[in-house]
């Protein structure tokens, strides 16, 4: 049995924040779950995927976030409790249905979990998605620890049903990947099916209906604002004359800082868990009982501006500050020391800085950037394409492990902004320059948003080569299934969709399917694609080494070694492949047999044939 199905109310269990959200959804009786995986939220759907094999819970990995929002939206409109999980930029993709779902409203509770990523540990920007609650006019809940990630999820479902409005549950990376004890509540049974009750005047947003439903949304906003002002999710802690307002993980930093500084008797904290619509009545009460106010929030100064505007409207003149105090800025995540220092500076209390050792005279330390794994088929694909297309070609790339093609020796990521832009970027570059263009996109990303771009390329007669890196899984986010894979090894029944058939169906005439570990043949196919006058697609098919090993689809193969009788130390292997299984021992290249997966790519490019399989 999955551990999140443990039926033991009151038991404390060590849970990852994302696991706590999944458990909260189960305690709220969630019956319909969808997502496109994205770090830092990926572990939520991973739980649902496993749990759906054991229970009546419906779960799907949707082809992209917009699809996930619409599939989930239909269930919520019909009356099922529904959860959609996204990373920050995922909500950009799903923004279209999200905005108008707020107009039509929902019948079953609909919770949209949105994981922001201050400091961009695994994202291409650090947008503050609290803006999305404002943009759509939906309530925003923000937990501050693992326990609240579970509890607020339950509250979010209740709130959503009460207002008949989707609710945004917003986390940040630090909370998604926090682990601590969570006290379990009761599990609720799953409602599997409902009857959809037609009501076109509500659900069909023709202008006349949309005009009316916008009015309905604004009325719900008023009610939500009253609920926020009295919600137990917002709390005033302490009764000192120095006020601090904090949300999310910042609240934890504030709480620890006030303890460390020993100023609990002088401080009161407004802990914001239900921060949009703004709880004006509560804000006014809080401002009336403090002499000055510090707002601690990561990224944009949204609560700060809200409080300042409210104070101005009500003739309140206490100082209200946030960004710019100490090192509090709009850029990157906060940390406990930074928040402690800012509070001390704002309140004028002493704060001891830790004595950090002098690190100015350390020896030069070689970098350790992330890298493609040993046996990664992308490395072989990059090598083969580079041999044919060289340095001067423009290489638009996409979101996935293969973005790491940016690293030397390949340097094969010249443009990468969002899912699918490798294809559409290739369309643009091939028109605005006379340079050769080769785009790289992963299999899951191709399904997510590569297909429309490919059709654009065919239809508008653009000329470039697209390499679809088909490694049989959504590798970067933790090996999720996607439409192109055989899902049976993961214990579920899905219909596999052929990438090659889609590519041909889009009208591409020049299609090559290669196995990148067969280096010579791969290079021949890429040369043919380069000669073609139009759009060529190369489908480079080889399973992700880690995924294959984890699912026993790749049997242990024989690792290779370097025969030093033959090796003339050209170092073509390390210089051209930079495989992490290779290292320098004094002056010679060696292969770490624990790391080598036996992909044989290095053996095929060694000019002396000095790389050989280990015997035994």
């Amino acid at each position: 049995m999955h551990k999140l199905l443990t039926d033991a109310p009151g038991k404390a269990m060590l849970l990852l924040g994302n696991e706590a959200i999944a458990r909260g959804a189960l305690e709220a009786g969630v019956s319909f779950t969808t997502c496109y995986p994205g770090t830092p939220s990926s572990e939520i759907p991973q739980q649902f995927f496993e749990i759906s094999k054991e229970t009546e819970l419906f779960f799907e990995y949707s082809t992209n976030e917009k699809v996930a929002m619409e599939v989930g939206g239909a269930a919520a409109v019909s009356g099922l409790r529904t959860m959609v999980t996204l990373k920050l930029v995922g909500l950009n993709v799903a923004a279209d249905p999200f905005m108008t779902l707020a107009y039509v409203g929902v019948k079953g509770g609909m919770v949209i979990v949105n994981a922001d990523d201050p400091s961009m540990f695994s994202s291409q920007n650090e947008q503050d998605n609290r803006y999305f609650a404002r943009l759509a006019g939906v309530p925003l809940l923000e937990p501050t620890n693992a326990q609240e990630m579970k509890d607020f999820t339950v509250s979010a479902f209740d709130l959503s049903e009460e207002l008949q409005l989707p609710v945004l549950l917003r986390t940040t990376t630090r909370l998604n990947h926090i682990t601590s004890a969570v006290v379990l509540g009761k599990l609720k049974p799953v409602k599997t099916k409902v009857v959809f009750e037609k009501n076109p005047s509500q659900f069909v947003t023709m202008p006349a209906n949309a005009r009316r439903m916008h009015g309905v949304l604004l009325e719900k906003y008023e009610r939500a604002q009253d609920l926020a002002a009295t919600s137990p999710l917002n709390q005033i802690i302490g009764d000192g004359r120095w006020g601090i307002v904090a949300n999310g993980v910042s609240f934890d930093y504030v709480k620890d800082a006030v303890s460390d500084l020993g100023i609990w008797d002088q401080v009161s904290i407004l802990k914001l868990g239900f921060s949009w619509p703004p709880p004006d009545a509560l804000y006014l009460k809080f401002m009336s009982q403090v002499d000055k106010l510090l707002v601690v929030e990561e990224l944009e100064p949204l609560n700060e501006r809200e409080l300042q505007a409210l104070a101005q409207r009500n003739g309140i003149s206490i100082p209200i500050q946030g960004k710019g105090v100490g090192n509090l800025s709009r850029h990157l995540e906060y940390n406990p020391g930074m928040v402690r220092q800012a509070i001390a500076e704002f309140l004028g209390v002493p704060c001891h800085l830790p004595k950090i050792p002098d690190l100015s005279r350390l020896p030069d330390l070689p970098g350790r950037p992330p890298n493609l794994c040993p046996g990664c088929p992308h490395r072989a694909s990059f090598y083969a394409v580079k041999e044919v297309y060289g340095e001067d070609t423009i290489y638009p790339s996409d979101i996935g492990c293969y973005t790491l093609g940016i690293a030397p020796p390949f340097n094969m990521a010249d443009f990468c902004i969002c899912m699918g832009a490798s294809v559409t970027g290739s369309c643009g570059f091939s028109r605005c320059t006379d340079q050769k263009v080769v785009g790289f996109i992963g299999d899951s990303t191709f399904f997510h948003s590569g297909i429309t771009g490919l059709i654009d390329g065919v239809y508008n007669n653009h000329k470039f080569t697209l390499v679809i890196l088909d490694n049989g899984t959504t590798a970067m986010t933790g090996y999720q299934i996607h439409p192109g894979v055989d899902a049976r090894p993961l214990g579920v029944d899905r219909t596999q969709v052929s990438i090659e058939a889609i590519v041909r169906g889009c009208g591409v005439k020049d299609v090559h399917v290669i196995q990148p570990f067969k280096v010579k043949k791969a290079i021949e196919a890429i040369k043919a694609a380069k000669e073609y006058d139009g759009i060529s697609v190369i489908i480079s098919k080889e399973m992700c080494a880690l995924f294959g090993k984890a699912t026993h689809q790749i049997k242990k193969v024989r690792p290779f070694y370097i025969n030093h009788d033959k090796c003339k130390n050209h170092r073509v292997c390390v210089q051209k492949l930079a495989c992490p299984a290779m290292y320098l021992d004094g002056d010679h290249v060696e292969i770490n047999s624990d790391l080598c997966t036996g992909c044989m790519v290095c053996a095929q490019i060694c000019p002396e044939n000095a790389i050989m399989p280990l015997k035994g």
Partner: protein
Amino acid sequence: METTRIVIIAVGGQGNLLSSRLLGEAALSKGIPCVISEIHGMAQRGGIVESAVLLGDVSSPIVSVGEADVFLGFEPLETLRGLGKCTRDTIVITNTRPLPPFTVAVGQGTYPLVDVILENLRTRVDRVIAFDGTALAAEAGNPLSLNMVMLGALIGSEAIPLKEEEVKDAIRNSTKKVFLESNLKAFDLGMAAVQ
């Protein structure tokens, strides 16, 4: 309750996250409040993986610069690189066996001598516990049990309020049978290395 802030630095694949999780399980069973944080994602692809384990009366899931009480490094270069988390009073426990990054093999930088790394640690921190944990893991019968060796050393250093049996119970409860014996042996060897 006293707060203990532990930072664990490792290279992707060395088992950092499991070791912080086991500390959490041991703390939970003993009734010590515990917050763990970790960074997933890109860092897994051969990069640096950092986790933090905070025990006691604390809410923040991360450790700021200069605030680690204990600093556990699974790889010597990364121990030195991460030293900003420490002060002179931090207890530093490090594996001495290098795992050179691929940048060294392609000629972008050289890996410092291990003695130079240790010298740099010792001039900046009063208590540095250093030993070849990778060799101990191999001795225990499983090269992948380095994380257990390091956990053993952490407990052996008596720097945190958790005892041998509490962590061993957590290991017993979460290890596949085939690895249990080697994991416990690795833990013992790590403990012995600091005593």
